[in-house]
Protein backbone atom coordinates (compact mmCIF):
# COMPACT_ATOMS: atom_id res chain seq x y z
CA UNK A 1 0.00 0.00 0.00
CA UNK A 2 1.00 3.51 -0.62
CA UNK A 3 4.42 2.56 -1.95
CA UNK A 4 6.29 5.76 -2.64
CA UNK A 5 7.68 4.55 -5.94
CA UNK A 6 4.43 3.20 -7.35
CA UNK A 7 2.52 6.06 -5.76
CA UNK A 8 3.78 8.26 -8.57
CA UNK A 9 1.77 9.10 -11.66
CA UNK A 10 2.12 6.56 -14.45
CA UNK A 11 3.69 9.35 -16.54
CA UNK A 12 6.37 9.86 -13.92
CA UNK A 13 7.34 6.18 -14.21
CA UNK A 14 7.91 6.57 -17.95
CA UNK A 15 11.36 5.72 -19.40
CA UNK A 16 12.16 6.58 -23.00
CA UNK A 17 11.99 3.50 -25.22
CA UNK A 18 10.54 1.12 -22.62
CA UNK A 19 7.74 -1.08 -23.97
CA UNK A 20 5.15 -3.43 -22.57
CA UNK A 21 4.15 -4.89 -25.93
CA UNK A 22 5.59 -6.13 -29.21
CA UNK A 23 3.70 -5.42 -32.38
CA UNK A 24 3.71 -7.90 -35.26
CA UNK A 25 5.60 -7.03 -38.42
CA UNK A 26 3.72 -4.49 -40.54
CA UNK A 27 2.69 -6.38 -43.66
CA UNK A 28 0.89 -3.49 -45.29
CA UNK A 29 2.79 -2.33 -48.33
CA UNK A 30 2.22 0.83 -50.31
CA UNK A 31 1.24 2.67 -47.17
CA UNK A 32 2.74 6.10 -46.87
CA UNK A 33 1.91 8.36 -44.00
CA UNK A 34 2.85 11.30 -46.17
CA UNK A 35 -0.18 10.57 -48.38
CA UNK A 36 -2.51 11.40 -45.52
CA UNK A 37 -4.22 14.78 -45.69
CA UNK A 38 -2.30 17.32 -43.66
CA UNK A 39 -5.37 18.16 -41.56
CA UNK A 40 -5.54 14.58 -40.26
CA UNK A 41 -1.90 14.46 -39.16
CA UNK A 42 -0.88 14.96 -35.55
CA UNK A 43 1.24 18.03 -35.10
CA UNK A 44 3.17 16.75 -32.11
CA UNK A 45 4.24 13.46 -30.58
CA UNK A 46 1.63 11.48 -28.70
CA UNK A 47 2.57 11.91 -25.05
CA UNK A 48 1.96 8.40 -23.71
CA UNK A 49 3.82 6.89 -20.77
CA UNK A 50 6.51 4.40 -21.84
CA UNK A 51 6.39 1.60 -19.29
CA UNK A 52 6.75 -2.18 -19.09
CA UNK A 53 3.82 -4.41 -18.18
CA UNK A 54 4.99 -5.16 -14.63
CA UNK A 55 5.28 -1.45 -13.85
CA UNK A 56 1.75 -0.87 -15.18
CA UNK A 57 0.33 -3.72 -13.10
CA UNK A 58 2.10 -2.65 -9.90
CA UNK A 59 1.17 0.97 -10.43
CA UNK A 60 -2.54 0.32 -10.76
CA UNK A 61 -2.65 -2.45 -8.16
CA UNK A 62 -1.00 -0.17 -5.60
CA UNK A 63 -3.36 2.62 -6.51
CA UNK A 64 -6.44 0.40 -6.21
CA UNK A 65 -5.25 -0.64 -2.74
CA UNK A 66 -5.75 2.97 -1.69
CA UNK A 67 -9.45 2.77 -2.52
CA UNK A 68 -11.97 2.86 0.27
CA UNK A 69 -15.35 1.22 -0.27
CA UNK A 70 -18.15 -0.61 1.50
CA UNK A 71 -16.06 -3.77 1.11
CA UNK A 72 -13.17 -2.20 3.07
CA UNK A 73 -14.94 -0.46 5.92
CA UNK A 74 -17.86 1.35 7.48
CA UNK A 75 -19.24 4.01 5.15
CA UNK A 76 -21.89 6.11 6.98
CA UNK A 77 -22.36 8.63 4.18
CA UNK A 78 -25.73 10.25 4.97
CA UNK A 79 -28.28 10.55 2.18
CA UNK A 80 -26.34 8.03 0.09
CA UNK A 81 -27.44 4.69 1.62
CA UNK A 82 -24.08 3.00 1.09
CA UNK A 83 -25.43 -0.45 1.91
CA UNK A 84 -23.51 -3.64 1.35
CA UNK A 85 -23.70 -5.10 -2.15
CA UNK A 86 -24.14 -8.86 -1.66
CA UNK A 87 -21.80 -10.89 -3.84
CA UNK A 88 -24.61 -13.15 -5.04
CA UNK A 89 -25.89 -10.12 -7.00
CA UNK A 90 -22.58 -10.02 -8.86
CA UNK A 91 -22.62 -13.74 -9.55
CA UNK A 92 -26.13 -13.58 -10.96
CA UNK A 93 -25.58 -10.60 -13.23
CA UNK A 94 -22.30 -12.01 -14.55
CA UNK A 95 -23.97 -15.21 -15.72
CA UNK A 96 -23.10 -15.69 -19.39
CA UNK A 97 -26.76 -16.29 -20.25
CA UNK A 98 -27.31 -12.60 -19.56
CA UNK A 99 -23.95 -10.97 -20.27
CA UNK A 100 -23.96 -12.25 -23.86
CA UNK A 101 -27.35 -10.84 -24.79
CA UNK A 102 -27.60 -8.06 -27.32
CA UNK A 103 -30.30 -5.38 -26.97
CA UNK A 104 -31.32 -5.78 -30.59
CA UNK A 105 -31.83 -9.52 -30.33
CA UNK A 106 -35.21 -10.89 -31.40
CA UNK A 107 -37.72 -10.85 -28.53
CA UNK A 108 -38.34 -14.58 -28.89
CA UNK A 109 -34.73 -15.26 -27.92
CA UNK A 110 -34.68 -13.07 -24.79
CA UNK A 111 -37.91 -14.10 -23.07
CA UNK A 112 -36.06 -14.89 -19.82
CA UNK A 113 -34.42 -11.47 -19.69
CA UNK A 114 -37.72 -9.73 -20.38
CA UNK A 115 -39.46 -11.85 -17.76
CA UNK A 116 -36.95 -10.75 -15.14
CA UNK A 117 -37.49 -7.15 -16.20
CA UNK A 118 -41.28 -7.51 -16.03
CA UNK A 119 -41.15 -9.19 -12.63
CA UNK A 120 -38.94 -6.45 -11.18
CA UNK A 121 -41.40 -3.82 -12.46
CA UNK A 122 -44.14 -5.63 -10.56
CA UNK A 123 -42.10 -6.12 -7.39
CA UNK A 124 -41.32 -2.40 -7.26
CA UNK A 125 -45.00 -1.60 -7.81
CA UNK A 126 -45.95 -3.86 -4.91
CA UNK A 127 -43.27 -2.44 -2.60
CA UNK A 128 -44.22 1.17 -3.36
CA UNK A 129 -48.00 0.89 -3.64
CA UNK A 130 -48.05 2.26 -7.17
CA UNK A 131 -49.57 0.87 -10.35
CA UNK A 132 -46.77 0.60 -12.88
CA UNK A 133 -42.97 1.03 -13.14
CA UNK A 134 -40.49 1.76 -15.89
CA UNK A 135 -36.89 0.66 -15.33
CA UNK A 136 -35.53 2.77 -18.19
CA UNK A 137 -33.98 5.82 -16.41
CA UNK A 138 -30.26 5.43 -15.71
CA UNK A 139 -29.95 7.11 -12.29
CA UNK A 140 -31.78 8.90 -9.49
CA UNK A 141 -31.73 12.38 -11.02
CA UNK A 142 -32.61 10.87 -14.40
CA UNK A 143 -35.58 9.26 -12.67
CA UNK A 144 -36.58 12.64 -11.21
CA UNK A 145 -36.46 14.20 -14.66
CA UNK A 146 -38.49 11.32 -16.10
CA UNK A 147 -41.04 11.60 -13.28
CA UNK A 148 -41.42 15.34 -13.82
CA UNK A 149 -41.83 14.73 -17.55
CA UNK A 150 -44.65 12.31 -16.70
CA UNK A 151 -46.17 15.15 -14.64
CA UNK A 152 -45.90 17.63 -17.52
CA UNK A 153 -47.18 15.14 -20.08
CA UNK A 154 -50.16 14.38 -17.84
CA UNK A 155 -51.09 18.07 -17.50
CA UNK A 156 -50.54 18.66 -21.24
CA UNK A 157 -52.79 15.68 -22.06
CA UNK A 158 -55.61 17.54 -20.28
CA UNK A 159 -54.82 20.74 -22.16
CA UNK A 160 -53.69 22.33 -18.89
CA UNK A 161 -50.58 24.19 -20.01
CA UNK A 162 -50.30 26.88 -17.38
CA UNK A 163 -48.91 24.56 -14.71
CA UNK A 164 -45.25 25.52 -14.93
CA UNK A 165 -44.23 25.57 -11.28
CA UNK A 166 -43.15 22.86 -8.91
CA UNK A 167 -42.98 23.18 -5.11
CA UNK A 168 -39.84 21.92 -3.38
CA UNK A 169 -39.00 22.06 0.36
CA UNK A 170 -35.95 24.11 1.40
CA UNK A 171 -34.41 20.95 2.84
CA UNK A 172 -34.60 19.05 -0.48
CA UNK A 173 -31.73 17.35 -2.25
CA UNK A 174 -30.08 19.68 -4.77
CA UNK A 175 -31.08 17.35 -7.58
CA UNK A 176 -34.78 18.25 -7.09
CA UNK A 177 -34.55 21.89 -8.23
CA UNK A 178 -31.97 20.89 -10.84
CA UNK A 179 -34.29 18.26 -12.35
CA UNK A 180 -37.18 20.73 -12.31
CA UNK A 181 -35.06 23.31 -14.15
CA UNK A 182 -34.01 20.76 -16.78
CA UNK A 183 -37.68 19.87 -17.22
CA UNK A 184 -38.51 23.55 -17.84
CA UNK A 185 -40.37 24.01 -14.55
CA UNK A 186 -39.91 26.95 -12.18
CA UNK A 187 -39.13 26.15 -8.57
CA UNK A 188 -41.19 27.50 -5.67
CA UNK A 189 -39.56 26.86 -2.28
CA UNK A 190 -41.65 25.90 0.74
CA UNK A 191 -40.10 26.50 4.16
CA UNK A 192 -39.39 23.98 6.89
CA UNK A 193 -40.57 24.28 10.47
CA UNK A 194 -38.06 24.24 13.34
CA UNK A 195 -38.45 20.46 13.57
CA UNK A 196 -37.34 20.12 9.94
CA UNK A 197 -40.67 19.10 8.43
CA UNK A 198 -42.61 20.99 5.75
CA UNK A 199 -44.50 24.02 7.08
CA UNK A 200 -48.09 23.35 5.98
CA UNK A 201 -49.12 26.95 6.67
CA UNK A 202 -46.31 28.19 4.41
CA UNK A 203 -47.42 25.71 1.74
CA UNK A 204 -51.08 26.74 1.56
CA UNK A 205 -50.62 30.19 -0.07
CA UNK A 206 -48.22 28.71 -2.64
CA UNK A 207 -50.88 26.42 -4.10
CA UNK A 208 -52.76 27.57 -7.19
CA UNK A 209 -53.57 26.54 -10.77
CA UNK A 210 -49.98 27.18 -11.90
CA UNK A 211 -48.61 24.40 -9.71
CA UNK A 212 -47.74 21.22 -11.64
CA UNK A 213 -46.93 19.37 -8.46
CA UNK A 214 -44.74 19.03 -5.41
CA UNK A 215 -41.52 17.07 -4.91
CA UNK A 216 -40.80 15.56 -1.50
CA UNK A 217 -38.67 13.00 0.22
CA UNK A 218 -40.14 11.18 3.15
CA UNK A 219 -38.44 10.82 5.53
CA UNK A 220 -36.94 14.16 4.62
CA UNK A 221 -33.32 15.13 4.27
CA UNK A 222 -32.94 15.44 8.03
CA UNK A 223 -34.15 11.87 8.50
CA UNK A 224 -37.47 13.06 9.96
CA UNK A 225 -40.76 11.46 8.92
CA UNK A 226 -43.13 14.04 7.41
CA UNK A 227 -46.10 13.28 9.64
CA UNK A 228 -48.36 15.79 7.85
CA UNK A 229 -47.91 13.98 4.56
CA UNK A 230 -51.59 13.04 4.18
CA UNK A 231 -52.68 16.66 4.62
CA UNK A 232 -49.93 17.93 2.28
CA UNK A 233 -50.91 15.41 -0.41
CA UNK A 234 -54.58 16.29 -0.20
CA UNK A 235 -53.83 20.04 -0.38
CA UNK A 236 -51.67 19.58 -3.48
CA UNK A 237 -54.27 17.29 -5.08
CA UNK A 238 -57.08 19.77 -4.36
CA UNK A 239 -55.03 22.42 -6.19
CA UNK A 240 -54.79 20.05 -9.18
CA UNK A 241 -51.13 19.17 -8.70
CA UNK A 242 -49.39 15.80 -8.46
CA UNK A 243 -47.20 14.52 -5.65
CA UNK A 244 -43.68 13.37 -6.54
CA UNK A 245 -41.72 11.11 -4.18
CA UNK A 246 -37.93 11.30 -4.32
CA UNK A 247 -36.93 7.71 -3.53
CA UNK A 248 -33.53 8.69 -2.15
CA UNK A 249 -34.78 8.02 1.37
CA UNK A 250 -36.89 4.96 0.67
CA UNK A 251 -34.71 2.59 2.70
CA UNK A 252 -36.30 3.10 6.15
CA UNK A 253 -39.77 2.72 4.63
CA UNK A 254 -39.04 -0.54 2.88
CA UNK A 255 -41.66 -3.11 3.67
CA UNK A 256 -43.26 -0.88 6.34
CA UNK A 257 -44.87 2.01 4.54
CA UNK A 258 -45.57 2.65 0.85
CA UNK A 259 -45.33 6.03 -0.93
CA UNK A 260 -48.44 5.16 -2.95
CA UNK A 261 -50.42 4.76 0.28
CA UNK A 262 -49.18 8.16 1.51
CA UNK A 263 -50.75 9.92 -1.47
CA UNK A 264 -47.81 10.09 -3.87
CA UNK A 265 -48.57 9.82 -7.59
CA UNK A 266 -45.12 9.46 -9.09
CA UNK A 267 -41.80 8.33 -7.64
CA UNK A 268 -38.35 7.15 -8.51
CA UNK A 269 -36.29 4.52 -6.74
CA UNK A 270 -32.50 4.47 -6.59
CA UNK A 271 -31.74 0.79 -7.15
CA UNK A 272 -28.13 1.62 -6.21
CA UNK A 273 -29.27 2.78 -2.78
CA UNK A 274 -32.29 0.82 -1.60
CA UNK A 275 -31.73 -2.34 -3.63
CA UNK A 276 -28.04 -2.92 -2.92
CA UNK A 277 -26.51 -2.36 -6.34
CA UNK A 278 -23.07 -0.72 -6.29
CA UNK A 279 -22.75 3.03 -6.43
CA UNK A 280 -20.31 5.82 -6.02
CA UNK A 281 -17.87 6.88 -8.65
CA UNK A 282 -20.56 8.06 -11.01
CA UNK A 283 -22.43 4.91 -11.83
CA UNK A 284 -23.81 2.95 -13.41
CA UNK A 285 -27.00 3.28 -11.39
CA UNK A 286 -30.64 2.88 -12.27
CA UNK A 287 -33.61 5.06 -11.38
CA UNK A 288 -36.92 3.27 -12.05
CA UNK A 289 -40.00 5.48 -12.06
CA UNK A 290 -43.41 4.38 -10.79
CA UNK A 291 -46.81 5.97 -11.25
CA UNK A 292 -50.27 5.55 -9.78
CA UNK A 293 -53.19 4.17 -11.80
CA UNK A 294 -54.22 6.58 -14.54
CA UNK A 295 -50.69 7.77 -15.35
CA UNK A 296 -49.30 4.54 -16.87
CA UNK A 297 -49.70 5.68 -20.46
CA UNK A 298 -47.29 8.56 -19.96
CA UNK A 299 -44.32 6.38 -18.90
CA UNK A 300 -41.36 6.30 -21.29
CA UNK A 301 -41.10 4.00 -24.30
CA UNK A 302 -40.42 1.16 -24.66
CA UNK A 303 -42.25 -0.63 -21.88
CA UNK A 304 -42.11 -4.35 -21.04
CA UNK A 305 -45.51 -6.05 -20.84
CA UNK A 306 -46.78 -9.60 -20.63
CA UNK A 307 -49.06 -10.69 -23.43
CA UNK A 308 -50.47 -14.15 -22.60
CA UNK A 309 -47.36 -16.24 -21.94
CA UNK A 310 -45.10 -13.93 -23.89
CA UNK A 311 -43.07 -10.89 -22.78
CA UNK A 312 -42.80 -8.06 -25.24
CA UNK A 313 -41.75 -4.41 -25.67
CA UNK A 314 -44.57 -1.95 -26.34
CA UNK A 315 -44.56 1.63 -27.57
CA UNK A 316 -47.36 3.91 -26.39
CA UNK A 317 -48.45 7.01 -28.38
CA UNK A 318 -49.30 8.92 -25.20
CA UNK A 319 -45.85 8.28 -23.73
CA UNK A 320 -43.52 11.14 -22.90
CA UNK A 321 -41.10 9.51 -25.37
CA UNK A 322 -37.84 7.71 -24.79
CA UNK A 323 -35.43 8.63 -21.99
CA UNK A 324 -32.69 6.10 -22.61
CA UNK A 325 -31.25 3.75 -25.19
CA UNK A 326 -33.09 0.45 -24.89
CA UNK A 327 -34.36 -0.41 -21.40
CA UNK A 328 -32.07 0.91 -18.64
CA UNK A 329 -28.88 -0.51 -17.12
CA UNK A 330 -29.66 -4.19 -17.30
CA UNK A 331 -26.78 -5.34 -15.04
CA UNK A 332 -28.03 -3.04 -12.29
CA UNK A 333 -31.61 -4.22 -12.78
CA UNK A 334 -30.43 -7.84 -12.42
CA UNK A 335 -28.59 -7.08 -9.18
CA UNK A 336 -31.70 -5.47 -7.67
CA UNK A 337 -33.78 -8.47 -8.75
CA UNK A 338 -31.28 -10.87 -7.18
CA UNK A 339 -31.32 -8.83 -3.94
CA UNK A 340 -35.11 -8.88 -3.65
CA UNK A 341 -35.36 -12.58 -4.44
CA UNK A 342 -32.53 -13.43 -2.01
CA UNK A 343 -34.00 -11.47 0.89
CA UNK A 344 -37.58 -12.48 0.23
CA UNK A 345 -40.83 -10.76 1.10
CA UNK A 346 -40.81 -11.47 4.83
CA UNK A 347 -37.23 -10.38 5.48
CA UNK A 348 -37.77 -7.27 3.37
CA UNK A 349 -39.96 -6.02 6.19
CA UNK A 350 -36.91 -5.95 8.48
CA UNK A 351 -34.77 -3.72 6.23
CA UNK A 352 -36.47 -0.46 7.23
CA UNK A 353 -36.71 -1.14 10.98
CA UNK A 354 -33.06 -2.26 11.23
CA UNK A 355 -31.85 0.80 9.29
CA UNK A 356 -33.87 2.97 11.68
CA UNK A 357 -32.65 1.13 14.78
CA UNK A 358 -28.99 1.47 13.75
CA UNK A 359 -29.33 5.20 13.06
CA UNK A 360 -31.07 5.87 16.38
CA UNK A 361 -28.51 3.77 18.27
CA UNK A 362 -25.63 5.92 16.97
CA UNK A 363 -27.58 9.15 17.49
CA UNK A 364 -28.44 8.37 21.11
CA UNK A 365 -24.91 7.17 21.85
CA UNK A 366 -23.29 10.36 20.58
CA UNK A 367 -25.70 13.16 21.37
CA UNK A 368 -23.85 14.14 24.53
CA UNK A 369 -20.69 14.90 22.46
CA UNK A 370 -22.28 16.22 19.27
CA UNK A 371 -24.95 18.88 18.89
CA UNK A 372 -28.30 17.32 17.98
CA UNK A 373 -30.46 20.15 16.61
CA UNK A 374 -33.57 18.03 16.10
CA UNK A 375 -34.29 15.49 18.77
CA UNK A 376 -36.75 12.62 18.86
CA UNK A 377 -36.75 9.42 16.89
CA UNK A 378 -35.12 9.69 13.45
CA UNK A 379 -35.50 7.33 10.52
CA UNK A 380 -32.51 5.92 8.65
CA UNK A 381 -30.24 8.95 9.13
CA UNK A 382 -29.79 12.03 11.28
CA UNK A 383 -27.89 15.29 11.35
CA UNK A 384 -25.55 16.63 14.02
CA UNK A 385 -24.69 20.32 13.98
CA UNK A 386 -21.01 19.85 14.73
CA UNK A 387 -19.38 19.18 18.10
CA UNK A 388 -21.26 20.08 21.22
CA UNK A 389 -18.20 21.87 22.57
CA UNK A 390 -17.03 24.17 19.77
CA UNK A 391 -14.75 26.24 22.03
CA UNK A 392 -11.49 25.00 20.51
CA UNK A 393 -12.62 25.86 16.97
CA UNK A 394 -12.62 22.27 15.70
CA UNK A 395 -15.12 22.13 12.82
CA UNK A 396 -17.19 19.41 11.20
CA UNK A 397 -14.62 19.28 8.40
CA UNK A 398 -11.87 18.53 10.94
CA UNK A 399 -13.94 15.76 12.55
CA UNK A 400 -14.59 14.23 9.13
CA UNK A 401 -10.88 14.33 8.24
CA UNK A 402 -9.88 12.81 11.59
CA UNK A 403 -12.32 9.90 11.03
CA UNK A 404 -10.21 8.90 8.01
CA UNK A 405 -7.24 8.32 10.31
CA UNK A 406 -9.35 5.75 12.16
CA UNK A 407 -10.26 3.90 8.98
CA UNK A 408 -13.86 5.07 8.64
CA UNK A 409 -15.33 6.85 5.66
CA UNK A 410 -16.49 10.34 6.64
CA UNK A 411 -20.22 11.07 6.89
CA UNK A 412 -21.81 13.65 4.60
CA UNK A 413 -20.75 17.12 5.76
CA UNK A 414 -22.16 20.63 5.32
CA UNK A 415 -25.41 19.21 3.95
CA UNK A 416 -28.24 19.91 4.47
CA UNK A 417 -27.64 23.65 4.49
CA UNK A 418 -30.13 24.25 7.33
CA UNK A 419 -27.29 23.93 9.85
CA UNK A 420 -23.86 25.51 9.71
CA UNK A 421 -21.85 22.48 10.80
CA UNK A 422 -24.02 19.67 9.45
CA UNK A 423 -22.68 16.13 9.88
CA UNK A 424 -25.09 13.61 8.41
CA UNK A 425 -24.83 9.96 9.41
CA UNK A 426 -26.54 6.96 7.82
CA UNK A 427 -25.32 3.54 8.94
CA UNK A 428 -27.76 1.34 6.89
CA UNK A 429 -29.23 -1.93 8.15
CA UNK A 430 -26.27 -4.17 7.31
CA UNK A 431 -23.83 -3.18 10.04
CA UNK A 432 -23.24 -5.31 13.13
CA UNK A 433 -23.49 -3.88 16.63
CA UNK A 434 -19.70 -4.28 16.95
CA UNK A 435 -19.12 -2.06 13.92
CA UNK A 436 -21.53 0.56 15.21
CA UNK A 437 -19.88 0.46 18.66
CA UNK A 438 -16.46 0.86 17.03
CA UNK A 439 -17.65 3.93 15.17
CA UNK A 440 -19.27 5.41 18.28
CA UNK A 441 -16.07 4.90 20.27
CA UNK A 442 -13.99 6.62 17.60
CA UNK A 443 -16.41 9.56 17.39
CA UNK A 444 -16.21 9.98 21.16
CA UNK A 445 -12.43 9.80 20.99
CA UNK A 446 -12.41 12.54 18.34
CA UNK A 447 -14.69 14.71 20.48
CA UNK A 448 -12.18 14.31 23.33
CA UNK A 449 -9.22 14.99 21.04
CA UNK A 450 -10.97 18.16 19.85
CA UNK A 451 -10.78 19.44 23.43
CA UNK A 452 -7.34 18.14 24.38
CA UNK A 453 -5.36 18.31 21.12
CA UNK A 454 -7.32 20.64 18.83
CA UNK A 455 -4.35 21.42 16.57
CA UNK A 456 -3.80 17.74 15.87
CA UNK A 457 -7.47 17.34 14.84
CA UNK A 458 -7.37 20.51 12.74
CA UNK A 459 -4.42 19.14 10.75
CA UNK A 460 -5.90 15.64 10.25
CA UNK A 461 -5.72 13.30 8.44
CA UNK A 462 -2.26 12.11 9.44
CA UNK A 463 -2.15 8.48 8.25
CA UNK A 464 -3.85 8.55 4.84
CA UNK A 465 -1.99 8.33 1.48
CA UNK A 466 -2.55 12.07 1.01
CA UNK A 467 -3.00 14.66 3.74
CA UNK A 468 -5.53 17.49 3.75
CA UNK A 469 -6.21 18.61 0.21
CA UNK A 470 -6.52 22.22 -0.87
CA UNK A 471 -10.23 22.38 -1.70
CA UNK A 472 -10.04 26.02 -2.72
CA UNK A 473 -7.27 25.54 -5.26
CA UNK A 474 -8.94 22.36 -6.53
CA UNK A 475 -12.09 24.36 -7.27
CA UNK A 476 -10.39 27.50 -8.54
CA UNK A 477 -7.54 25.95 -10.44
CA UNK A 478 -8.05 22.27 -11.17
CA UNK A 479 -5.15 20.45 -12.81
CA UNK A 480 -6.76 17.35 -14.23
CA UNK A 481 -4.27 15.92 -16.69
CA UNK A 482 -0.55 15.39 -17.04
CA UNK A 483 -0.12 17.86 -19.90
CA UNK A 484 -1.47 20.62 -17.64
CA UNK A 485 0.70 19.46 -14.76
CA UNK A 486 3.78 19.66 -17.00
CA UNK A 487 2.84 23.21 -17.98
CA UNK A 488 2.54 24.06 -14.28
CA UNK A 489 6.06 22.89 -13.47
Amino acid at each position, binding site marked *: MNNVYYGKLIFELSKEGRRGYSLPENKLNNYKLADMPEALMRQRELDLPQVDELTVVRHYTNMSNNNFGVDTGFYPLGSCTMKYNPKINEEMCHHYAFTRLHPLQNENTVQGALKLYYELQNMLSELSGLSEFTLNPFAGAHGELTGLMVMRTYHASRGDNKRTKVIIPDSAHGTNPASAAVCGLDVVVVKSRPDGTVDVEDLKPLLNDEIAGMMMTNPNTLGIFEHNIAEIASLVHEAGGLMYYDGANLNPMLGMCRPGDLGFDIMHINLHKTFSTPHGGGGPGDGPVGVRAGLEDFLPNPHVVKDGDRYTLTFNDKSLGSVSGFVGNYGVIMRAYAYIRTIGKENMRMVGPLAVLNANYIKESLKDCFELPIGGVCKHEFVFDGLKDKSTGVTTLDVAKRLLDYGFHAPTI*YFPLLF*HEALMIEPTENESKETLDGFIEVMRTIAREAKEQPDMVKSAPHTTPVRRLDD*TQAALHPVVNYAELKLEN
Partner: protein
Amino acid sequence: MSKIVEGLYYSESHEYVKVEGNFGFIGITDYAQKELGNVVYVDMPEVDDEVAAEEEFGAVESVKAASDLLSPVSGTVVEVNEALEDEPGLINKDAFENWIIKVELSDKAELDNLMNAEAYKAFIGE
Protein backbone atom coordinates in the same frame (compact mmCIF):
# COMPACT_ATOMS: atom_id res chain seq x y z
CA MET B 1 -16.53 37.81 16.08
CA SER B 2 -17.72 39.03 12.71
CA LYS B 3 -17.15 42.52 11.43
CA ILE B 4 -20.30 44.65 11.14
CA VAL B 5 -20.24 48.09 9.55
CA GLU B 6 -22.36 50.93 10.94
CA GLY B 7 -24.63 52.79 8.54
CA LEU B 8 -25.37 49.83 6.23
CA TYR B 9 -28.66 47.99 5.83
CA TYR B 10 -28.76 44.23 6.45
CA SER B 11 -31.04 41.41 5.31
CA GLU B 12 -31.88 38.17 7.11
CA SER B 13 -30.18 36.26 4.32
CA HIS B 14 -26.91 38.06 5.19
CA GLU B 15 -26.64 40.55 2.32
CA TYR B 16 -25.89 44.21 2.99
CA VAL B 17 -26.69 47.42 1.10
CA LYS B 18 -24.48 50.46 1.36
CA VAL B 19 -26.48 53.44 0.13
CA GLU B 20 -24.89 56.38 -1.68
CA GLY B 21 -27.47 58.79 -3.09
CA ASN B 22 -29.80 56.81 -5.33
CA PHE B 23 -27.39 53.91 -5.58
CA GLY B 24 -26.91 50.85 -3.41
CA PHE B 25 -23.82 48.63 -3.23
CA ILE B 26 -24.90 45.06 -2.48
CA GLY B 27 -22.67 42.33 -1.09
CA ILE B 28 -22.59 39.59 1.52
CA THR B 29 -21.65 40.23 5.13
CA ASP B 30 -18.47 39.23 6.90
CA TYR B 31 -20.52 36.72 8.90
CA ALA B 32 -21.77 35.15 5.65
CA GLN B 33 -18.29 34.84 4.13
CA LYS B 34 -17.03 33.18 7.31
CA GLU B 35 -19.88 30.69 7.29
CA LEU B 36 -19.37 29.93 3.61
CA GLY B 37 -15.62 29.43 3.77
CA ASN B 38 -13.36 30.11 0.81
CA VAL B 39 -15.41 31.54 -2.04
CA VAL B 40 -14.48 30.01 -5.39
CA TYR B 41 -17.07 31.51 -7.73
CA VAL B 42 -19.52 34.39 -7.79
CA ASP B 43 -22.39 34.22 -10.24
CA MET B 44 -23.41 37.79 -11.00
CA PRO B 45 -26.17 39.40 -13.11
CA GLU B 46 -25.44 41.71 -16.05
CA VAL B 47 -25.57 45.47 -16.17
CA ASP B 48 -29.13 46.68 -16.91
CA ASP B 49 -30.68 43.56 -15.35
CA GLU B 50 -33.55 44.27 -12.97
CA VAL B 51 -33.33 42.94 -9.43
CA ALA B 52 -36.26 42.70 -7.03
CA ALA B 53 -36.28 42.72 -3.24
CA GLU B 54 -36.01 39.22 -1.76
CA GLU B 55 -35.49 37.73 -5.22
CA GLU B 56 -32.41 35.83 -6.34
CA PHE B 57 -29.86 37.83 -8.34
CA GLY B 58 -26.91 35.43 -8.38
CA ALA B 59 -25.05 32.90 -6.28
CA VAL B 60 -21.89 32.50 -4.26
CA GLU B 61 -20.12 29.19 -4.46
CA SER B 62 -17.65 28.14 -1.78
CA VAL B 63 -15.82 24.93 -1.04
CA LYS B 64 -18.68 24.06 1.31
CA ALA B 65 -21.81 25.03 -0.60
CA ALA B 66 -23.46 27.12 -3.27
CA SER B 67 -25.79 29.79 -1.87
CA ASP B 68 -28.26 31.98 -3.71
CA LEU B 69 -27.83 35.71 -3.41
CA LEU B 70 -31.09 37.47 -2.54
CA SER B 71 -31.34 41.15 -3.31
CA PRO B 72 -32.27 43.24 -0.26
CA VAL B 73 -33.72 45.95 -2.51
CA SER B 74 -35.27 46.45 -5.96
CA GLY B 75 -33.62 48.33 -8.79
CA THR B 76 -31.49 48.20 -11.93
CA VAL B 77 -27.95 46.86 -11.97
CA VAL B 78 -25.59 49.64 -13.06
CA GLU B 79 -22.30 47.93 -12.31
CA VAL B 80 -21.00 44.51 -11.32
CA ASN B 81 -17.73 44.01 -9.45
CA GLU B 82 -15.68 42.42 -12.23
CA ALA B 83 -12.68 41.93 -9.96
CA LEU B 84 -14.61 39.02 -8.38
CA GLU B 85 -14.58 37.14 -11.68
CA ASP B 86 -10.82 36.63 -11.49
CA GLU B 87 -10.48 36.67 -7.74
CA PRO B 88 -13.67 35.52 -5.94
CA GLY B 89 -11.58 35.15 -2.76
CA LEU B 90 -11.64 38.95 -2.40
CA ILE B 91 -14.96 38.43 -0.61
CA ASN B 92 -13.14 36.46 2.08
CA LYS B 93 -10.47 39.15 2.40
CA ASP B 94 -12.98 41.94 2.99
CA ALA B 95 -16.65 41.29 2.35
CA PHE B 96 -17.67 44.91 2.93
CA GLU B 97 -14.98 46.40 0.71
CA ASN B 98 -15.76 43.95 -2.10
CA TRP B 99 -19.38 44.55 -2.96
CA ILE B 100 -20.96 42.37 -5.68
CA ILE B 101 -23.35 44.64 -7.58
CA LYS B 102 -24.20 48.34 -7.68
CA VAL B 103 -27.91 49.00 -8.13
CA GLU B 104 -29.90 52.12 -8.92
CA LEU B 105 -32.63 51.92 -6.26
CA SER B 106 -36.21 52.02 -7.50
CA ASP B 107 -37.85 52.27 -4.08
CA LYS B 108 -35.89 53.66 -1.19
CA ALA B 109 -38.76 52.88 1.16
CA GLU B 110 -37.71 49.22 0.93
CA LEU B 111 -34.70 50.08 3.09
CA ASP B 112 -37.07 50.37 6.03
CA ASN B 113 -37.66 46.61 5.85
CA LEU B 114 -33.97 45.90 6.49
CA MET B 115 -31.97 45.75 9.72
CA ASN B 116 -29.44 48.30 10.93
CA ALA B 117 -26.02 47.26 12.24
CA GLU B 118 -27.24 46.85 15.78
CA ALA B 119 -30.25 44.73 14.82
CA TYR B 120 -28.12 42.58 12.53
CA LYS B 121 -25.60 42.04 15.30
CA ALA B 122 -28.37 40.75 17.52
CA PHE B 123 -29.76 38.69 14.63
CA ILE B 124 -26.52 36.71 14.18
CA GLY B 125 -26.21 36.38 17.93
CA GLU B 126 -22.83 38.06 18.34
